[in-house]
């Protein structure tokens, strides 16, 4: 049986070497169809094959809806994702990506104060392009880089208009982060993306700000569909002799998936019955709207199911 489609298929339409160890990749649909929508500053998982998955912020804006643009700095000591993209990915190559997630909830009225370190600027490039496209100038970007910054071509009007403050830390002092945010203590949105030290200083500078007025860019894991609130339990598959632990963040269905078990899933929400599975040890927690009380004695709808005890045994 063919595998279920779980990612968006794209093709690399452009690779640009921007210098400073950074490459920009443009991903499009093979027929130039619109891609799934996203919010300003959202991110996607890029599937590079053999289990190599890396998350990157989109640099383009939501209205630019037929491409995903990512910028990748080579991390020589990194875990291989950026090197793979730099060395192995070429124009014309197919690449699977996740649906976009996250994004910045921009302040409509007040000032959006963005603080970026190096390549951490990517979500703010997206946000600035989004605001500029709407004729809005209620933002300021403070952006540090070591040497010449890249991606400036994507926000040229903003730079020209003086809404971007650049700090080349090879040649000048770093910005005083506390001072930047002090001025806006009463209103606006503070957002930061950069190295750990910068995030820490930023966190201290806005520690008194309410949560809804600050955004620290961190990649969020994909939303777990049937989020479970039960403690971890052991899962044993009696027919295939496989054992695993089900944790709340992965869930029963996610664990089955990780074990490579092909359970037929259709609605994923406990109403169609496609994923019904026999159980022999439990007791399971039933959350479906399909099975009768009698059927529940030996069957479980695994897409929304769980275990009330320590060990669940499924006939798979």
């Amino acid at each position, binding site marked *: 049986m063919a595998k279920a489609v779980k990612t968006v298929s794209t093709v690399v339409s452009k690779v640009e070497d921007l210098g400073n160890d950074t490459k920009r990749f443009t991903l499009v649909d093979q027929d130039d169809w619109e891609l799934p*929508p996203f919010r300003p500053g959202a991110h996607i998982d890029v599937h590079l094959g053999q289990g190599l998955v890396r998350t990157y912020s989109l640099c383009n804006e939501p209205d630019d809806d037929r491409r995903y643009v990512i910028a990748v700095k080579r991390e020589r000591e990194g875990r291989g994702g950026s090197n793979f993209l730099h060395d192995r990915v070429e124009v014309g190559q197919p690449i699977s990506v996740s649906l976009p997630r996250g994004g910045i909830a921009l302040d409509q009225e007040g000032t959006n104060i963005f603080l970026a370190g190096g390549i951490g600027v990517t979500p703010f490039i997206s946000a600035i392009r989004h605001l500029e496209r709407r004729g809005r100038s209620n933002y300021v970007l403070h952006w540090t880089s070591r040497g010449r910054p890249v991606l400036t071509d994507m926000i040229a009007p903003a730079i020209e208009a003086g809404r971007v403050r650049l700090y080349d830390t090879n040649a000048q002092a770093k910005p005083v982060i506390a001072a930047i945010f002090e001025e806006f203590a009463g209103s606006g949105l503070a957002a930061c993306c950069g190295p750990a030290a910068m995030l820490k200083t930023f966190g201290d500078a806005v520690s008194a700000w309410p949560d809804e007025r600050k955004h620290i860019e961190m990649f969020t894991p994909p939303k777990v569909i049937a989020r479970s609130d039960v403690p971890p339990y052991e899962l044993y598959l009696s027919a295939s002799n496989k054992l695993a632990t089900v944790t709340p963040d992965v869930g029963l269905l996610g664990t089955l998936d990780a074990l490579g078990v092909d359970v*037929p899933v259709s609605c994923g929400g406990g109403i169609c019955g496609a994923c019904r599975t026999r159980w022999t040890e439990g007791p399971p927690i039933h959350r479906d709207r399909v099975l009768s009380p009698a059927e529940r004695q030996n069957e479980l709808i695994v897409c929304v199911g769980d275990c009330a005890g320590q060990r669940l045994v499924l006939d798979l």
Partner: protein
Amino acid sequence: MDAIAIDQPEVTMSWQGVVRFLHKTPRAFLPMRSFPSLELVAGRGIEGDRYFVGHEAGFYSHKPEEGRQVTLFEMETFEALQRDHKIELLPEEHRRNVTVEGVPLNHLVGRRFRLGEAIVEATRLSTPCRHIEEILGKSVFDPLINRSGLNCKIIAGGTLRVGDAVRPI
């Protein structure tokens, strides 16, 4: 299945509906795009759609189903969602191909009817899919249970246009 098709139930249905929107998309997860007309091909599906037989690239394509050649959705459901759940669902968001008005979809399972110049046979009611919430960022799964549209196979093909009539045979 054939028995149902030949032996239509006794009850005569009198209704007349109209096609309001037409949509398709070539691959899973991509937004649906609106078209003034669609080409329905008997036994295969809609030209250029993700479930067109021979070019399957849909979310459910690993589970082929004859009755998914064309899918319908009721215009009236938009009002119901707005009224009962304060949810605004747009025609391009339900991910069915044909949005109709004045057609009792839930009563058509097992029947053949005319869709413009084409003839289709309703195979089963559609079920909503959890991934629609992920795509739309709207909590529509529960509200769409039992009103998620109708799956049909195409008995006789033809061009389907916005404004075409939908009629019992």
